[in-house]
């Protein structure tokens, strides 16, 4: 299925990646190429096949619901581009 410019714009928006208008045609072309390559999958008879959820048949382990660490606020915030008063700081979200 060919991706048009509107779809490319929408995908970029969903992915939260800014793409300039001038770059959308090239992006649409590349996405179309990649998705065209995936069309081969339509040749496969998948009736009655369950989609794979886990490559090894295993039951995910559950850990005990208990506190194992904490009190590491400084470490948690250490790599933040903007941390203030013990919080991550972001632009105003609510007016």
């Amino acid at each position, binding site marked *: 299925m060919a991706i048009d410019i509107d779809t490319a714009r929408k995908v970029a928006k969903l992915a939260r990646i800014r793409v300039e208008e001038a770059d959308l045609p090239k992006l649409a072309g590349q*996405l179309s190429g*990649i998705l065209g390559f995936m069309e081969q999958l339509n040749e496969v008879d998948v009736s009655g096949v369950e989609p794979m959820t886990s490559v090894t048949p295993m039951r995910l382990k559950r850990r005990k619901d208990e506190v194992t660490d904490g009190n590491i606020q400084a470490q948690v915030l250490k790599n933040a581009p903007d941390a203030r008063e013990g919080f991550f700081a972001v*632009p105003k979200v609510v007016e």
Partner: protein
Amino acid sequence: MSANTWTIAAARDALRKGEISAVDLTMSCLTAIDAGDDLNAFVHKTPEIALEQARAADAKLKAGNAAAMCGIPLGIKDLFCTKGVPSQAASNILKGFKPEYEATVTTKLFDAGAVMLGKLNMDEFAMGSSNETSAYGNAVSPWRRKGSEVALTPGGSSGGSAAAVAADLCLAATGTDTGGSIRQPAAFTGIVGIKPTYGRVSRWGIVAFASSLDQAGPMTKSVRDAAIMLQAMAGHDPKDSTSADLPVPDFEAALTGDIRGKVIGIPKEYRMDGMPAEIEALWAQGIEMLKDAGAEVRDISLPHTKYALPAYYVIAPAEASSNLARYDGVRYGHRAKLTAGDGITEMYEKTRAEGFGAEVQRRIMVGTYVLSAGFYDAYYNRARKVRALIKRDFETVFADGVDAILTPATPSAAFGLGEMADADPVKMYLNDVFTVTVNLAGLPGISVPVGLDAQGLPLGLQLIGRPWEEDALLNYAHVLESRAGFVAKAEKWW
């Protein structure tokens, strides 16, 4: 021979006998690293940490309770979070990120006494097959075509690891493999690389690309070294719920060289149209070597092979788009400069546009598309069904008595850096054609250097094993390695 050229096995023995100290061994690598800047393999050097770890290793060796990896100098792929040391997955979006914690794999290696020389170049977020998507610039292969000075790719995504090991900047390196990222660069540079069974090695602390496919493994100068290093990396980790709570076999002890009566499958679907004659010939040689060692060689069919690449390029980007949603400019790494009036959405969009390179952006958007409402069933669910069929192909041949499968590792020898620049993205994806099935099926796979092409470049073969039987797989690889007798090294130009 200078100590940086040694194998892990040789260094282990020399260290234990006191013939060399871990500090001297480490120094020889640090010297080689500084002389190897043209390869752009080490992107963050950590000589102080290395020497401190080497001194600690010497103390342990003196005390006589040293593990096999004690005092062994390693390079660590940039995808591994290493405490206090830049770990940015070769991406600008993680520029300046210094983890406050240590990945399980590196913790295990360091607990065993291994020495970290620094962080290694790679494709951004491990998305690439040539190391050309790295924010650090290309890693360069130590290998060149005969009579040529054209810079070649060391492969990818673990390109820095491959270049560093092949050029003897370190004794071995960690790699990760989502679609072939250990095995393809190993084949391109004439070294050994194993991707273990999914769940054999903890993923905790490794920057996630596609969580159902990612596995870490060693990249080494010999099969024995791969066995020794994998031993130190493997094992159950409560911090990774997909890591298997199974006993880890003694990998080195499995290297008996006896494969008599074992059945090696040769899948006809891997004989592709347009495959270079040299690859075909190499494969035939490999078959003869295993036969000569007493194995029974059997033609097999893995009928869904053709659909592995398109399935992979739905599943991996889908998982990546979800995993990489965390890079939002809030908790770590890069945040774009905002202009007046920009809200949080603009912050996300500008940060991610500036921080991610073109290939990563493309894959995130492909993943976003195949997961979006209306396309989820047509692409993502269909790919997961095809994945189940690909796995079933392998299960069928294993149930029929096949012990391992022999294939080429790559469809060609290493290509020149920039040679694929104008190709469409799908052409680059074809590099993974022989390796990607193994990730989709969660199996162990190993690349072994077997010969040189007419231009003097290394070519490798891949062996695929049964799940959880890396021990047997390493033994088959060991036999192939001994028979092939690959000893070529890149001629030093750097």
